[in-house]
């Protein structure tokens, strides 16, 4: 196990662009590497992604391992997992953080079996234990009702997927450089029987939730699909995006991709306006990291009203039109 050195992060780069999670992982990983006195390395897989290395250096990476090949243009589980497993076998990292995005959740799980090591899913905090240098990854379980700290004592690397937006992005250090290591793609070995056919961009006319600074979210209290048009008006006025809790999705009022919460997405906007959302713990798990939370609810006793920084008791169908009026 002594052979295993350095902290790795997997920099997700789909469709020519680094995922925001890459910067979050660099931030989390930099602290781990400094605490261990080891290097921070980023793994970059894709096609035409080598250009992203500069950005990774400027956000804290010491070494960037790049595997750049047309066969990696799109994400196919087996191909990516086999490449990662080979890289780990060659370079022997000590800790390995991946993003808990859809891609990262699937990739980390498959790679952990190929590598033969333990994986903690969806952690929100990672630290190095001072006594033994082990990675302690803390994550919510039972729908956010319980936090569990998980270790992987006997195998390396200790792998962990990190929940998006649980860490701030690493600060930019312009001009900071590092070492690029090119890793060869092995077309005979890095194969899959699965075939990637097509990417379909989201039809949503709004902003991507993970990048929105303002989110207007609706819950059961919205009452109907058409109600989201009103929320959209407010979101548009504030330059934000619309989202939902579980109930509207289950009722078919809005698509699953807009669901915030434990079984949906995690967001961390500057302003989160929860409209007609009761605030079940599963929902809170997806948005409690927001800078400022506003709750609009008919029920003053709803759990969301106690989590919100500003609680407005009232019917969203009265409050939102009045807000739009006041914003004119």
């Amino acid at each position, binding site marked *: 196990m002594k052979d295993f050195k350095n902290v790795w992060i997997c920099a997700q780069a789909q469709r020519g662009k680094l995922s925001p999670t890459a910067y979050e992982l660099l931030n989390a990983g930099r602290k781990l590497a400094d605490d261990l006195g080891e290097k921070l390395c980023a793994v970059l897989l894709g096609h035409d992604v080598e250009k992203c290395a500069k950005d990774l250096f400027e956000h804290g990476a010491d070494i960037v391992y790049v595997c750049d090949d047309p066969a990696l243009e799109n994400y196919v589980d087996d191909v990516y997992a086999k490449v990662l497993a080979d890289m780990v076998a060659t370079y022997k990292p000590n800790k390995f953080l991946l993003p808990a995005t*859809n891609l990262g959740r699937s990739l980390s*799980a498959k790679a952990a079996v190929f590598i033969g090591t333990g994986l903690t*899913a969806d952690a929100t905090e990672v630290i190095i234990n001072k006594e033994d240098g082990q990675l302690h990854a803390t994550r919510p*379980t*039972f729908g956010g*009702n319980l936090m*569990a*700290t998980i270790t992987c004592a006997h195998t390396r690397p200790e792998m962990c997927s990190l929940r998006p937006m649980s860490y701030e992005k690493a600060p930019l250090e312009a001009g900071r450089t590092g070492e690029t290591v090119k890793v060869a793609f092995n077309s005979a070995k890095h194969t899959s029987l699965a075939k990637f056919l097509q990417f379909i961009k989201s039809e949503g006319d709004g902003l991507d939730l993970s990048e929105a600074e303002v989110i207007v979210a609706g819950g059961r209290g919205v009452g109907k699909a058409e109600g989201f048009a009103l929320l959209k008006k407010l979101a548009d006025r504030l330059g934000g995006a619309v989202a939902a809790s579980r109930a509207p999705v289950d009722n078919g009022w809005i698509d699953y991709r807009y669901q915030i919460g434990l079984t949906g997405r995690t967001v961390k906007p500057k*302003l989160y306006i929860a409209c007609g959302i009761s605030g079940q713990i599963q929902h809170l798990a997806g948005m409690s990291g927001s800078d400022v939370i506003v709750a609009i609810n008919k029920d003053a006793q709803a759990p969301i009203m106690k989590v919100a920084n500003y609680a407005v*008791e009232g019917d969203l169908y009265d409050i939102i039109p009045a807000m739009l009026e006041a914003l004119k």
Partner: protein
Amino acid sequence: MHIVACVKQTPKSDNVKIDPATGCLIRSGAASAMNPFDEYALEEAVMLKEQLGGTVSVITMGPPQAEAVLRDSIARGADKVYQLGDMAFAGSDTWSTSYALSKGIEKINGIEPVDLVICGKQTNDSDTGHIGPQVSAWMKWPNAAFVKKVVSVNEKSITVERLTEDGSEILELPFPCVLSVVKDINSPRVRSVKGRIAAKRAEVTKWTADDVAADKNKLGMKNCPTRVVKSFVPKREVCSANVEGATAKEKAAKLVEILKENKYI
């Protein structure tokens, strides 16, 4: 077509109670049921069987009482059910659980060749989403996760649409393969009267670790790679202020004023 759905018995979502002192799950009186995400996996398996003909087998790993989710699977349209039950499995993490399931599926594959394995997106108790991809890794079969739609299917392959953060992707996977599905994919049916009767009569095949030729050095709390070293109830900070006003208009104006003043908007 032979489809295997993987299911787990978990505490009902709305019934999770944690002892704040010990941080442990209060199991007494907590109702258990099929992990809600697995209902979509089983429903998709049954729908594919209805379309193409064939068999739906269901496998679970768990203590003796987990037999209930297998009988429930019969009521929901499954044909054959298998339970992996052995003290050697107890306390397994996802790495070990997926290994055990893959050994069970291997054995089922020996009885009747398996074309497709379907798992739920994640469980509602550990929320990892690891099992589908990890079962596929052990089986060395291709997989796709976050599958929201079956685009087309024939005797040789299945074409699926999976969800990404920025849209969706279409993949074609030859059989045998493994899918993990999200709830967009279908609306699970209610159990039929006929199904409920069949559930009571169904034969549950029970296998130990030895029965499926699983390597015990890869199983259970002692041998699995990860371990829970601490658990605690999360603290929530509260600093709530009520936005007061006599009418909706007053409250809304006050809120907008606060948001502007603090430069939140």
